[in-house]
């Protein structure tokens, strides 16, 4: 056990030299990654990071506060549409637009948090589900949002055009660095939130709301706040997602996306930030990459494509990723309900006692 000398050491970001070392290694790795990867993989990494931001936010709500949401595709959509529309219609520069969009999403999160005061468990889940679907349809029916035909993201100018200071990011590489920096800030922010007053209050509500109340936690404020914080993260993620895709329509933010988000944090580990990151990376890879290249695998690839076309879907191998996802979910639930985070904890325990 480490000897501690100051109270601050309990809440420090890097509690030991080892952690600091690996954090630096990780940072160097992330910042030099583009040197070793193709454009397609940069696109994939960008998607992963966007999903990491969202999953971290969703985990604050679901994992830490214990309120389940099946409507996060709605907040994600609000972030994407608001960022793009604020930029194209009002001419607001990128960063203020992104932050404003996240606040708009947070406001909707607050609104959705209000029924959470009365509803619990499956009833709350249904309410959030309805919210996600409603957002998708409202956007699809209003011309100002581009209707069903969708919206095109403008050039990603991170400067301020009004001051004549322009810096347009066009390549996936430049977007990678922008998203990477924002992701790091958001993840560190979440770590800190969970270590301070607000995060502890969330956990208290999850574990025993009656005890939370008698120690002075206002359930109304903290339940809605949890929704708002979570939606804020989804809003930031959505704003970045718009520029990763370049083009999106209401169907992009369909109900299945909300389920994928929930799967990310369950597979990663509820209530764990590192778990959210691992889960988001893993599920995004399954969603976008694994089965896209499957036909390239010698022998087996053709066979799988053949099976898929004959039995599952005439369009190819799309359904296989859903099946794989289902199997992963069932496997995790049976063998490790704590997700990747649980596996990590067990490994750590094993190595601590090694070789005994």
């Amino acid at each position, binding site marked *: 056990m480490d000897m501690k000398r*100051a*109270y*601050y050491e*309990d*809440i420090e970001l890097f509690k030991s030299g080892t952690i600091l070392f690996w954090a630096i290694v990780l940072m160097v790795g992330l910042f030099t990654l583009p040197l070793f990867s193709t454009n397609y993989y940069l696109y994939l990494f960008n998607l992963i990071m966007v999903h990491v931001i969202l999953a971290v936010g969703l985990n604050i709500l679901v994992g830490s506060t214990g309120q389940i949401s099946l409507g996060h595709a709605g907040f994600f959509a609000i972030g994407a549409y608001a960022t793009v529309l604020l930029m194209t219609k009002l001419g607001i520069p990128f960063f203020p637009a992104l932050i404003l969009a996240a606040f708009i999403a947070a406001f909707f999160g607050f609104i959705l948090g209000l029924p959470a005061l009365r509803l619990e468990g499956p009833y709350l889940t249904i309410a959030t589900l309805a919210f996600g679907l409603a957002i998708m349809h409202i956007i699809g029916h209003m011309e100002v949002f581009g209707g069903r035909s969708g919206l095109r993201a403008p050039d990603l100018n991170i400067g301020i055009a009004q001051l004549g200071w322009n810096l347009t990011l066009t390549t996936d590489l430049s977007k990678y660095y922008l998203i990477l920096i924002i992701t790091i800030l958001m993840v*560190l*922010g*979440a770590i*800190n*939130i969970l*270590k*301070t*007053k*607000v*995060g*502890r*209050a969330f*956990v*208290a509500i*999850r*574990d*025993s709301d*009656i*005890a*939370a*109340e*008698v*120690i*002075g*936690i*206002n*359930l109304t404020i903290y339940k809605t*706040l949890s929704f708002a*914080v979570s939606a804020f993260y989804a809003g930031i993620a959505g704003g970045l997602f718009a520029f990763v895709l370049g083009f999106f329509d209401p169907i992009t933010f369909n109900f299945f996306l909300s389920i994928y988000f929930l799967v990310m944090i369950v597979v990663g580990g509820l*209530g764990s930030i590192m778990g959210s990151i691992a889960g988001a990376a893993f599920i995004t890879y399954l969603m976008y990459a694994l089965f896209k290249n499957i036909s390239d695998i010698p022998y087996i690839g053709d066979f799988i494509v053949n099976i898929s076309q004959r039995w599952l879907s005439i369009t190819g191998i799309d359904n296989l990723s859903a099946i794989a996802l289902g199997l992963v979910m069932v496997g995790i639930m049976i063998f490790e309900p704590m997700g990747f985070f649980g596996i990590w904890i067990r490994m750590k325990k094993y190595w601590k006692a090694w070789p005994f």
Partner: protein
Amino acid sequence: MGYFDVENLSISFGGLKAVDDMSLSVNKNEIFSIIGPNGSGKTTIFNLISGIYHPNTGSVKLEGENLVGKTPDRIAKKGIARTFQNIELFANATVMDNLMLGRHIYMKTGVFSGAFMWGKRSRAAREEIAHREKVEHIIDFLELQSVRDQFVGSLAYGKRKLIEVGRALALEPKVMLLDEPSAGMNTEEKDDLTIWIKDIREDYNVTILLIEHDMNMIMGISDRILAMNQGQKIILGTPQEVQKHPEVIKAYLGEEGAA
């Protein structure tokens, strides 16, 4: 009018009068115990005081201010802390975090100042450190050092009872409601707890309302005792007076000649 007054408090569930026109007046720094058989309404009184139930009639006044109608979190901020009969701790948090949650009402860090806890000098970190210091005193006081960083869910029953007392103490309350704090403790732990309850009164200036079944403990530390049955007062008086009351003897020692 006393320091902490319960006046004509009544509540019924359906046809059952759980607490029936109960009045009591507790002095500052008193240890006031409530005894009675199971289902006599002891815990219900605590739930009424802490705002979990709302009474049909009556009032609860701390230093003259009526607390009835306020939500539990408002009442906590007014200076009333409590523990529960069936332990209500935050099982998936560490002992330290549970006690830090007792400091919740004194902390000001919000989402943004919390998210920007960069380094030792940030506002959030300074506040955390100050409150961790306070909690560390409570950990010292209740001798919880050995379990400081453990998850509460994995601890023994007696220890968890004690952590609940610690969490209530972290609120720096004016009045502390202890609901069977010694349940599940062995004799040695009970002796320690008795001393700690006295110390809490002396060192932290807390008025204590205590529900207990252990008669040795009750008679040893109480200034006054309320004995109740079926929501009503049997007798309110000093330990000596209560001990001699025939109905209390009947309830706790068995009827004369019955054995």
